[in-house]
């Protein structure tokens, strides 16, 4: 048995586009996850019974079931609800919901670490409740949990590979097509693994850079 990587190098263009697809899924998923995370924490802090329970239930269900089952469920549930989306959009939705549940849990931890004295001080200074949440609670909270949020987002980037199961457009599904045409399974997946390593290292660097710019204390 000899290895033949030429079939993989010949397909470099499709692989490059697949990698872009993966990055697109990851970035779109992270954006939705962040929005869901912040909204979820805002709902939890409003301390209304039913909405809080729903958010907690959402977090627990998502965190304790596999992403593969979630994406299958969403993939089959949407058409029954009369919504027809293409697989890539469905995948983004699934990634956003999954990442959102983890983001709620992480951001909640950060928000709870902000001493109540700070909120009270903000209110005493005459800031509106929303302003207090945004500037005094949320920003320092996200600064505090930014490292854990980053590693969760790296996991999200790696999770995009599972979206091949509903044939969303990303690197693994491109790889599976190459494999089906060439029967060079090992060469294909070995190369994909390398590309994923580069993608996750790049994402790590990017997130660290964003963290350095957006969440640093002002320095003079």
């Amino acid at each position, binding site marked *: 048995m000899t290895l033949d990587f030429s079939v993989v190098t010949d397909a470099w263009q499709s692989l490059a586009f697949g990698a872009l697809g993966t990055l697109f899924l990851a970035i779109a998923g992270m954006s939705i996850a962040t929005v869901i995370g912040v909204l979820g924490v805002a709902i939890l802090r409003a301390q209304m019974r039913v909405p809080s329970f729903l958010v907690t239930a959402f977090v627990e269900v998502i965190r304790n079931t596999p*992403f593969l089952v979630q994406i299958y*469920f969403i993939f089959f549930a949407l058409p029954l609800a009369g919504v027809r989306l293409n697989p890539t959009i469905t995948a983004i939705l699934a990634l956003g919901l999954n990442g959102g549940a983890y983001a709620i849990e992480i951001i909640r931890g950060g928000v709870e670490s902000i001493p109540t004295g700070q909120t009270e001080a903000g209110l005493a200074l005459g800031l509106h409740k929303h302003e207090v949440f945004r500037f005094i609670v949320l920003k320092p909270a996200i600064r505090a949990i930014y490292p854990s949020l980053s590693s969760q987002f790296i996991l999200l980037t790696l999770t995009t590979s599972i979206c091949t199961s509903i044939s969303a457009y990303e690197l693994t599904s491109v790889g599976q097509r190459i494999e089906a045409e060439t029967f060079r399974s090992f060469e294909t997946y070995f190369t994909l*693994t390398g590309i994923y390593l580069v993608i996750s290292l790049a994402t790590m660097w990017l997130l660290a850079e964003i963290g350095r710019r957006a969440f640093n204390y002002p320095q003079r």
Partner: protein
Amino acid sequence: MGPQEFAYLLQGLAWTLVLTAMGFVGGIAFGVIVALMRVSSVTWIRLIAIGWIGLFQGTPLLMQLFVAYFGLPLLGFNLPAWAAVGIALTAHASAFLGDIWRGAIQAVPRGQTEAAMALGLHTRSLMIDVIMPQAFKLSLPATVGFLVQLLKGTSLAAIVGFIELTRAGSIVSNQIYRPLLVFGVVGAMYFAMCWPLSLWGRNIERRMSAGASR
């Protein structure tokens, strides 16, 4: 969904548990080695462990399964599918557990090491009798968290074609064409296994932080 289909799902669930157990037991055995290599004072040993951890944390589990599944036969090992998947899960778990325990070993206060050395303990005894028991306790919440992660991760064996719970769900769903019902039940089965573990992990964490603040 009749009793026959449900029995088929339960059979898949049994395989999910077998895969999880293989990955976790193997991961514990090799994870200890990875953790010890990671805190070694010899640079090249430490670098190997850093590379091993980075490789498995920086690539998708799905790729690790594919590479093991198609790569091991190329190396001349003719393994059944469950063994290839088990090896991949073991390697994956060894990297993650190794990193968790590295953190725990480093979190044991430095004074403990100094006290042990002042008492004249050897490096071996220092690790086994002083550092590791304390690190084990510190690492419990994260270790339980990873167990949940691993249990959910075994579902990816379905994409490689191995019939565990998720794959059994796909097959049943194709037969009776009730995907929402089937994946709802499959999801509920995973939840029934993972949720108690998650609650247990959180409970340990809460008790530990209560102990620390006292």
